[in-house]
């Protein structure tokens, strides 16, 4: 039996390229296993070989649209039998990169398994590609790699990874046609509950992940504050055609040098509420006037030179979560440390 060729994907930190200072680095490769890949190689045994490690900075991989494609090209150049991504623990940008790479690899016909904590927002981006649970932080690297190696062997053998193997992520929701309308099924469900079936439901209750709050800002006068909103505020005429509902995109618009947003120069395209108030005074959505005053007075260090905007109306939680991760990457790249998010 020939040796199974494995490519391992890790972020800049686990590739030994640096921490946040190197988060903007682009995709690259090295021969063989690196960092956690060495232990993974051992765990996989003699029938497997980590032939190369592909790595990329977290901000680049999660924030630049072409990054995943480029990473996948580096992976495919190795002609691997299996791609292993992570473990990404609870790191949002790393998890997102691993999950998106897993989704892209699956679409390209490359066998793949990614590893991250069940609460990592990346879990939602794997689009059905196999993701196995890891611990929450790098101190749990040992058991996380044990589980990842076991899962890698299962995937390499062509078998499906199951929840018993540590697979995470909610099952895909698929549309079907029921034999009765929803109204009739609702009455059936009410009667089932009244009969004592306390668990009957058609929608297993979603488990919103726990957000670990970021540390507080020590000194406001030293930070750059960003203004971000899901209120759909765009320049008059909506030049980029931001959606009024079910947004799939977000935009950034310059506010450097501006003390205020001029009425009439902006409009809200949000389809979920009356936009009369926002159109009359854009500060009702993006409070630049006050924030600029506070910056000029030295209360805060500065104002980020663009505001970020999307439309939070019928937007899928998956997309909204992606915007959050992308916004964070965008803000970090430009040095903003804190944000005021206005929501409608």
């Amino acid at each position, binding site marked *: 039996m020939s040796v199974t060729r494995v490519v391992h994907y890790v972020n800049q930190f686990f590739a030994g390229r640096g921490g946040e200072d190197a988060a903007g680095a682009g995709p690259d490769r090295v021969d063989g296993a690196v960092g956690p890949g060495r232990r993974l190689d051992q765990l996989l045994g003699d029938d497997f070989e980590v032939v190369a490690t592909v790595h990329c900075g977290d901000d680049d991989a999660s924030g630049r649209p072409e990054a995943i494609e480029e990473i996948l090209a580096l992976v495919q150049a190795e002609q691997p039998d299996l791609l292993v991504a992570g473990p990404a623990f609870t790191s949002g940008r790393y998890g997102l990169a691993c999950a998106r790479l897993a989704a892209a690899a699956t679409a390209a016909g490359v066998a793949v398994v990614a590893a991250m904590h069940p609460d990592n927002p990346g879990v939602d981006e794997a689009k059905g590609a196999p993701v196995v649970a890891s611990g929450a932080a790098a101190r749990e690297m040992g058991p996380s790699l044990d589980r990842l190696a076991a899962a890698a062997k299962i995937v390499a053998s062509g078998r499906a990874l199951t929840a018993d193997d540590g697979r995470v992520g909610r099952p895909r929701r698929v549309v079907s046609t029921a034999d009765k309308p*929803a109204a*009739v*099924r609702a*009455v059936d469900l009410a*009667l089932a509950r009244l009969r004592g079936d306390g668990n009957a439901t058609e*929608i297993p209750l979603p488990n919103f992940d726990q957000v670990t709050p970021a540390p507080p800002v020590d000194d406001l006068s030293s930070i750059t504050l960003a203004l971000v909103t899901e209120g759909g505020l765009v320049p008059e005429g909506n030049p980029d055609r931001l959606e009024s509902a079910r947004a799939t995109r977000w935009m950034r618009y310059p506010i450097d040098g501006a003390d205020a947003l001029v009425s009439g120069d902006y409009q809200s395209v949000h389809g979920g509420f009356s936009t009369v108030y926002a159109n009359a005074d854009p500060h009702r959505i993006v409070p630049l006037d006050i924030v600029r005053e506070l910056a000029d007075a030295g209360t805060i260090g500065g104002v980020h030179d663009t505001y970020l905007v999307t439309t939070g109306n019928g937007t899928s939680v*998956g997309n909204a979560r992606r915007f959050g991760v992308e916004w964070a990457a965008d803000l970090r790249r430009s040095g903003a440390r804190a944000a005021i998010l206005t929501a409608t």
Partner: protein
Amino acid sequence: MPEPAAGLSRAIHRVRHVAFGERTGYDGSTLTVDRDAAMARLASPALERIDLSWASPGEPVRIVKILDAVEPRTKGPGGGGIFPGFVGPARPQGRGITHVLQGVAVVAAGFLPRAQEAVVEMSGPVAELSPLGATHNLVVTFAKAPASSWEEVDLALRRGLLALAASLAEAALEVDPDTVEELPAQVPLAAGDLPRVGAVVNLQTQGAFKDVFVHGRSFAGSWPTLLDPNELDDGAVVSGQFGHPALKNPTFLHQNNPVVAALRARHDVDLRFAGVVICPEPVDQDSKAATAAVTARLCALAGFDAAVITKEGGGNADADIALKMDELDDLGIVAVGLFAEMPGPDGTGPSIVVPPSRATAMISTGNYDEPLVLPAVERALGGDSVHLVDLPATDELTLPTAVIYCSLSPLGWSSLRCEDAA
């Protein structure tokens, strides 16, 4: 015609064919509409132009930019009190006889501000996803008079649609109905062993073009109230809400509320229909919470053992269901909520924006973002293009379920649902 019972008798007249003709009439099978007389019902200074077209099941026709839809009904000449507050005086109805032209809808289609583009197919695979895919639709299209405001246009359309619907049904007043359905006047609290199950109907109340009317008045700012279910049949609740096409409750579905129908069908079989509570969907958190608490108390007072809760609108309105489910749960009343899921086109994202935190009985009405392919059609009514995809309205279109009128019906009309992939 049988003697009217103490409740409401629905005289059902099935319409199998439709036509335009010299005089409006109904012969027990074909509804003929006098176009000029119908136009006169719709005429308003706010409307510069009105056009009428038929769109019938099986035709290669698409209706776009659909606003409201109304089932023709009347209680007598001049309406006899139908659509209280609009056609009849603002008084409770739901007694006597109501004549129903079943299989027909009067439908307005065209631009209004804040209206989100709604599509109905009269043929092809998507036709069955909307109640209007199976009805003969008298489609009203219009142009705004330059001097009028859009609010005036909205009001003129609503009044015109209801007046036209009532007048069409008058053609059936002297015709023997296909069937007569008897709806009891009220359900006494007197017990028996059957559980008492009621409906909680949330009505969207978000201002102009996103409003719902009860007895002719906007329901915004109201407290929840008990409503005689038979009043729904006589048009006590009228829609002026044009957002979220798939999650919209047109007047047609308030007249034919699917949860009420399901409860009536099983009354005295395996449950007792305990009544209807209607509630506004306020736009701020405090009012949502207060409304939920008041609703739960009303349900308890009305002796509900269980409630089926419906909404209108998107994720914001999920909160109106979720909060009520939790409040009812706290009072020991079983609460079932109907939710459209939003896991994205591939079904991999989280489903529900605002789930309840304690109650868990949820019914799925499908996926908001499921892509659907609509084959090209010969004729489109209501507009020349579909703005969302920027294509001619007659083209083959790939659209999400979200834009198919009532396809994820929050009132439970549809049979679509989501399940976990195997």
